[in-house]
């Protein structure tokens, strides 16, 4: 299944691994921040509603 990458396997692997890691980090950052802010706003609004 794995394609034959020849003498440049390390370069191709590094490019794909770095891109995957950076995109995963970016998506995680956006999702974690979204959840944190949403939770804090919900708490604040429910506190003010009381």
């Amino acid at each position: 299944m794995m394609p034959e990458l020849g003498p440049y396997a390390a370069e191709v692997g590094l490019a794909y691994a770095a891109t995957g890691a950076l995109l995963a980090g970016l998506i995680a950052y956006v999702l974690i921040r979204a959840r944190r802010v949403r939770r804090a706003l919900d708490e604040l609004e429910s506190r003010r509603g009381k």
Partner: protein
Amino acid sequence: MASIWRYANPRKFMETSGWLLPGVSILAALCIATGVIWGFFFTGEDYRQGSTVKIVFLHVPAALMAINAWLMMLVASLIWLIRRHHVSALAAKAAAPVGVTMTLIALITGAVWGQPMWGTWWAWDPRLTSFLILFLFYLGYIALWQAIEDPDTAADLTSVLCLVGSVFALLSRYAVNFWNQGLHQGASLSVVDEGAPMDIAYRLPLYFAMAGFALLFIALLLAGTRTEIRARRMQALLTRERMG
């Protein structure tokens, strides 16, 4: 025809982005998976570049989005400066982390590709240099948002910074045409029109990857802007609470 300005209303934006977000995210994942899997597993080696040609499916879409994200921030910043719509300023703020990541991916994959092809990780070539400056502008833009407490002042100053940085965003796109020197080739897809066609076997997965990166940018932009709108509301409520 309904005016586009109604989306400047945070409530309307939250409502519309709420139902758009899942669809755009799924489409982005499908396009990226198709483009990258097709490109990595089912394309052959280039006769000159060997298997490094497979880096094109990451490098070109990331570079494209690095420039386009800044241009989107430019439009949003102009809307803020002219019409004072808060959603546009917050959209520009939300686009910056995505743009800086895309720029970093383009720089890293470019260096990794350049080493075996050019014999060097880096050269002070016009396109590479303008891309590095664009990366520094992204960092400066994010830092400026963090450094200023008043959100309207932060939006004003970052908008001005964005206008200045746009010179480098455009330069990184057209540097090869302006100077006609350096190691970097012209735009990959316009090379097609200049008589050295990229084979269809590479072009099709590349189109999928480019569409996927663009959709990923839109999905993260929508999600990020929603978060910024909530953060802005929270800040307003806390200020009101403090003032009694």
